[in-house]
């Protein structure tokens, strides 16, 4: 049995709220609690379950959720090969950090690089119900690991609707069978890790009311591809990830449908000063649409009236992050972090910022975090 308990503090500048009302005196509206258990009835079978409770400003109020619950069967398991299948609710193999994104100890910083792991679309990528096949081959030239499978994303909730459609509409979202796959290569001693993740996520919208009081029966297709690279030395690690994120919405309404490609990447360095102290420096960039990187086209098209206006800075985010981690004991850890978002509000949640017109283009985040694990 293992678990974790994390409390965060976020102080942001201007009018930009992160995890609750964070501008005036800061917010303690960020808590993560998780407990898991696993059972190995025989060496080739494992059952695992994890419950999660998250408080995250307006997006989550601590309601318990089933994070994963799966049965893992390894059909082949030798020192250099593994082949098996996981069935149930599984964490999605997405980039380098998604597998354990809610565990503060495993994150490189308080806030994960929002370019790849943004809070807005968390529900779409965190875990899903389905089947995950896995295979691993280890040899003198290195190790190859593949995870691949059909899943149903957890989209039937308000956060996903805000992430996919930008507003909570009368109807509901329903996931079609979607696919995710990650292929990872690492050198024999795993100093270098290279991965590519591909996703094809299809979501249907089931309107409840007739047009024009509701959207039409549309379909959202999200097909991100993520390239990941990490080099691990003894006292430092260098990590970079790059994603192309095509989004295609059709059948909602002529004004609503889009066909855009987002782009995002970060470069991050970690330096382990000694067993207790660790520092992180990162540059993080996120564009919602590669044809409108500065958001000016979107603003010109939508801001003819205030009700529909999407300001230009809501289309991108550029973030310099510097942080420090202190390992108090193996089970207690504290962190402090500063973000200079020198342009853009793309990863701010509408749940915490109902009026996007009130947001400021340039802003800062100061964050503290305390975490316990067992």
């Amino acid at each position, binding site marked *: 049995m293992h678990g974790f308990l994390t409390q965060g503090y976020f102080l942001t500048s201007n009018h930009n709220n992160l995890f609750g009302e964070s501008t005036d005196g800061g917010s303690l509206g960020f808590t993560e609690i998780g407990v*898991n258990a696993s059972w190995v009835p025989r060496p080739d079978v494992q059952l695992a379950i994890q419950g999660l409770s998250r408080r995250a400003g307006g997006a989550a109020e601590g309601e318990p959720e089933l994070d994963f619950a799966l049965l893992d069967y390894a059909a082949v398991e030798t020192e250099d090969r593994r082949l098996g299948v996981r069935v149930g609710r599984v964490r999605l193999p997405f980039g380098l950090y998604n597998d354990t994104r809610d565990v503060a100890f495993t994150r490189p910083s308080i806030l994960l690089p929002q370019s790849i792991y943004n809070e807005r679309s968390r529900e779409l990528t965190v875990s899903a119900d389905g089947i995950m096949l896995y295979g691993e081959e280890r040899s003198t030239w290195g190790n190859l690991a593949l995870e691949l499978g059909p899943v149903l994303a957890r989209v039937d909730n308000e956060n996903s609707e805000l992430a996919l459609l930008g507003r909570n509409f009368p109807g509901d979202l329903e996931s079609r069978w979607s696919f995710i796959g990650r292929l990872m290569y690492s050198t024999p001693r795993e100093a270098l890790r290279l991965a590519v993740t591909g996703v094809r996520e299809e979501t249907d919208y089931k309107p409840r009311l007739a047009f024009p009081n509701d959207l039409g029966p549309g379909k959202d297709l999200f097909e991100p591809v993520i390239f990941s690279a990490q080099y691990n030395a003894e006292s430092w690690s260098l990590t970079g990830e790059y994603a192309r994120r095509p989004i295609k919405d059709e059948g909602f309404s002529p004004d609503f449908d889009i066909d855009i490609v987002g782009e995002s990447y970060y470069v991050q360095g970690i330096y382990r000063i000694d067993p207790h102290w660790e520092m992180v420096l990162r540059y993080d960039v996120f564009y919602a649409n590669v044809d409108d990187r500065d958001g000016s086209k979107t603003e010109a098209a939508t801001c003819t009236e205030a009700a529909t206006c999407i300001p230009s800075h809501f289309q991108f985010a550029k973030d310099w992050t510097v942080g420090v981690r202190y390992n108090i004991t193996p089970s207690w850890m504290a962190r402090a972090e500063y973000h200079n978002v020198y342009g853009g509000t793309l990863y701010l949640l509408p749940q915490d910022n109902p009026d996007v017109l009130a947001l400021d283009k340039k802003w800062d985040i100061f964050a503290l975090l305390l975490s316990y694990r067992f």
Partner: protein
Amino acid sequence: MLRREGAEGVVASASPYFPMAYSTPLASAFQRATPAAGFVLVLRHGLVLVRRARPALAGPSQGRRTDSTLQAWALCLILLCGWPARANSEEVVVAVNPATPAGATITRNTLSAIFGMRLRSWADGTPIRVYVLPDNDPVHVAFSKEILGVFPHQLRTAWDRLVFSGTGQAPLGVADEAEMPARIAGIYGARPEVLGSEEEMREKLARNAGAIGYLSRKMIDERVAILPVN
């Protein structure tokens, strides 16, 4: 020899990036010189530094110049002589329960799979039970780097991924090296010599067949067997 848990006043750093368990004529010379001269050896980030002991323990007449001269000499000797070899008794070895069906030797590849928690049973189907020391323990650091060829932080990352994504289990934690033989053997409390008979000992060992861990050679006793790595 450098003491890991030094006597009073020995400011031996326990950096996980550098195991303390090295023995060298140079180190011995300094170690012997330490109490009188008021200097200590500090190993940090792969550098040997000679520092003054804390003021209360240092002689009143020790000056800065002597301090830096000694530092320079130590570094100079290290550069000339190369890195000192690990003394045999400090060498970290793979230790198994005598009833573990591991065969006569084990390959590095198999060890990587076992300590990476990707191989869960021995060839005959016996479940593998993996025991590890804390991440910062010098013996764990030495085992990770010298035998597995990875850094402790990489192992921790891999184990956390298994535990917190439900795809595997973490190894069993052992608080310190002294406890390791008992955990691997599955024999607590009574030392083997006070067990009634060899047969009784064999019976007890068999209950934890499949156990594997690691120890410095000097900590090996009759409860555990060394599994050579080839």
